[in-house]
């Protein structure tokens, strides 16, 4: 009811700020998830439902409120209740999480329920399971493909092969597979001289900036799979920009951040990766490094999903010291001032149609690029609105979800069409894929524009 009706007051309850709410408490042991506290704070306002991009286009999807607190209660109260298979229709965009005024940890509930569904109710021999596992473990395929990038690029998009993939595995043939780079980011990094070279570059930069040559400015780069195998130019831009500001970069051993695995309920796979990532990052953080990611889903995973889902030594320290790369520079340097004084010419002097990825939104970064670049001479940037891009990692690759993913993206495509530029910009590699797929635009990462503006 609304206050239009009577003078009794409808009470939105407290957002869970800080100390009262310890997400890890909810799951003392990951095999025995107790979602009760989260379920109890839901007062059924349906805010989450109005934010769910899937419920907006899909009749069969009962929405986040059902997936989270309601399903949990059913499970508690009915002995033979099994997780509803609609949980696999949730794309893990985490919009519902961001919306809930009561601090219900919705995405944590969904990730958990999906994990349970996949491990207990899904046949390990089903085509769907195998397909999802292959999609989720993109890094494994990418490692092989990157060894023979030309062949892989050809084979992956070879018509008959695509037809077979769709028919036998349910991977949509509507999409172009992303191209593999001829040289991975890590290959480039080693060839360039690795950490020693970075150390040298950073020292020179600090001297040139009038800072102490030995100042303690160092970051550990979590590049993720995509900028390693597919868009090393993003990783290179990140390194050059950070060095320009006098930061030494190291590139520790790492696995996939786990985002595609969470979304497919493959929590064991995700945990194996998380253990490697947390252990290598935690050591560096102890030595005074901060962890930096250029992909917003990767930083989201390290910051929020890891501590929500796993109990690994050092996980909280890693979460508290992980930043999105541009955000880090905003906090520690006068990035805005430098951009106001800068100018861009040549290839990147363009009008950009910017889309904020859902996972950037959750980190409060939805307006960061617009804010920074709107005053950069030689370029323009326009926000294309708050719609979800719809691809959500592996989601839009599944044959049965392709249409849904395009329907969700409808608004974004319209707004991109209306925007004055015909180059896209976003932080998320899969959003970039969808933007390009729907409009044919070339899509760039903010770090590339920062490099063009700030690095000689």
């Amino acid at each position: 009811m609304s206050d239009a009706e009577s003078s009794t007051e409808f009470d939105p309850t407290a957002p869970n700020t800080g100390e009262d709410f310890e997400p890890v408490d909810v799951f003392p042991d990951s095999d025995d998830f107790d979602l009760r506290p989260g379920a109890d704070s839901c007062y059924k306002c349906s805010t989450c439902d109005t934010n769910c991009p899937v419920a907006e286009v899909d009749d069969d999807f009962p929405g986040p409120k059902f997936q989270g607190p309601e399903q949990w209660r059913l499970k508690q109260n009915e002995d033979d209740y099994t997780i509803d298979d609609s949980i696999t229709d949730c794309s893990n965009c985490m919009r519902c999480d961001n919306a809930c005024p009561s601090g219900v940890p919705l995405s944590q509930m969904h990730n958990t329920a999906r994990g349970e569904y996949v491990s207990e109710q899904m046949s390990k021999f089903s085509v769907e399971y195998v397909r999802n596992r292959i999609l989720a473990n993109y890094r494994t395929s990418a490692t092989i493909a990157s060894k023979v990038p030309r062949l892989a690029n050809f084979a992956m998009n070879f018509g008959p092969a695509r037809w077979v993939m769709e028919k036998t595995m349910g991977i949509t043939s509507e999409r172009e597979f992303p191209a593999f780079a001829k040289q991975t980011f890590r290959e480039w990094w080693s060839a360039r001289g690795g950490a020693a070279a970075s150390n040298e570059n950073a020292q020179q930069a600090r001297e040139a900036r009038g800072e102490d040559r030995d100042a303690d400015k160092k970051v550990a780069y979590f590049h993720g799979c995509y900028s390693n195998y597919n868009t090393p130019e993003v990783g290179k831009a990140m390194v050059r920009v950070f060095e320009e500001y006098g930061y030494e970069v190291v590139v520790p051993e790492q696995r996939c951040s786990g985002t595609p695995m969470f979304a497919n309920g493959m929590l064991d796979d995700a945990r194996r990766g998380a253990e490697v990532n947390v252990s290598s990052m935690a050591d560096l953080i102890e030595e005074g490094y901060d962890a930096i990611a250029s992909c917003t889903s990767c930083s989201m995973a390290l910051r929020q999903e890891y501590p929500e889902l796993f109990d690994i030594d050092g996980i909280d320290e890693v979460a508290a010291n992980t930043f999105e790369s541009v955000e880090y520079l905003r906090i520690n340097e006068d990035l805005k001032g430098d951009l106001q004084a800068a100018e861009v010419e040549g290839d990147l002097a363009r009008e950009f149609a910017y889309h904020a990825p859902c996972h950037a939104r959750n980190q409060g970064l939805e307006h960061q690029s617009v804010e920074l670049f709107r005053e950069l001479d030689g370029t323009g940037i326009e926000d294309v609105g708050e719609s979800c891009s719809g691809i959500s990692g592996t989601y839009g690759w599944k044959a049965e979800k392709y249409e849904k993913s395009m329907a969700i993206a409808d608004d974004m495509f319209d707004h991109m069409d209306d925007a004055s530029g015909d180059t896209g910009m976003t932080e998320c590699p899969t959003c970039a894929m969808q933007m390009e797929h729907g409009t044919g635009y070339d899509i760039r990462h903010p770090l590339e524009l920062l490099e063009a503006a700030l690095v000689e």
Partner: protein
Amino acid sequence: MAIESEVLVIGGGLAGLSSALAAARAGADVRLLSYKQSTLQNASGLVDLLGYTHEGDGPLTDPYDAIPDLPEEHPYRTVGVDGVREAMAMFDDVTDYRGGHTDTNALLPTHGGTVKPTARYPKGAAAGLASDDRDVLLVGLGSMVDFDAPHVAAHLEAAGVPFDARGVTIEFPGDLRADAKVTRYAKLLDTNGEVAVDGRMVGARDALADTIEPHLDGEERVGLPAILGDDHPGAVRAALGDHLGVDVFEVPMGPPSLPGLRLEDTLFEALDEAGGNFETGNPVVDYAGEDGHIEEVYIEKTGAKIPVSGDQYVLATGGLVGKGVESDREGVYEPIFDCHVPHAEDRYDWFDLEVFGDHQFARFGLPTDEQLRPLTADDDVEFDNLRAAGSILGGYDFAAEKSGSGVSIATGHAAGTTAAQEVQ
């Protein structure tokens, strides 16, 4: 280093957005920080200035007229009648709301069948005015139990409206799930997506109009619950209206409310256009500063505390319900800056035993000086660079007075304008 701005607004509801907008339009470099979506998604989307006096008299014809007689601690008295007018002028400028042509309250039918005095209403509700004497057909959807059209029509007639009202209940075409989300209907209508009707695929707009048509019996206007599109509500109404040959309007609904969400979107867009910056999703939890001056505040992101600084601050984190003000067994407090919140020592004095009695908690909130700066228990200014706006303020009871959105817009505008003046 911290992320810096001139004016920093905390809270992204109607008050925070109005503050940020006013400051940005006055030329200040503004940043708005907000945790979650605001109470707008629960609110009807109507903007009430003052429907009843603090003593319960009303409905009031002219809200401006009644402001000077409000108690001195009422936020409208702090802002003044001119301040309220300036704020509403800004609101009218950035939205396409109606009602700004007159000082007089409009009367709108609600989804409960009452008639409510309000100062501004969405364009989509305009054809529904209760002062209009054209007959009305109200159309409810079987799945939306909050809007029982025949019942609402009967109520309206009993309330003495100057027209005949009739209500029917239909099913939304296409066999959607029984608990489909309001955004599902809105999206289908926005995109005119196809739905199955008798085995044929038909655009949702035509299908809905076809379903309503046989029920029309000479009425000149048709009212539906507020589900008629999210991005293109005007086009949806026009299409339905053309098909039916009548005016179509939306009846504002309770949560989750599309008109509230549309208003929120409009205001964020206006803020962006005015050059303001914003970020949402994480709470402000703490501050640094001394001698009654705030240096910076901290946003909490999973254990990390991100510093953000401003020269001037506006606190618009909502009331007891939005968690700008919190309470526990010990007392009532404001969680970020620990500003003083007056309340009785004894918890049992916070409320009245009567449900509709005189509850203290309904008026809990910050007392301020004439510049909206929060005051300590000794009436000193808490911080020289902090102002408060919206339902975090004390001294009024928005639910009883029907003044919720008006107070948020008026105090937000005043706080933002003064903050901008301070930095120039």
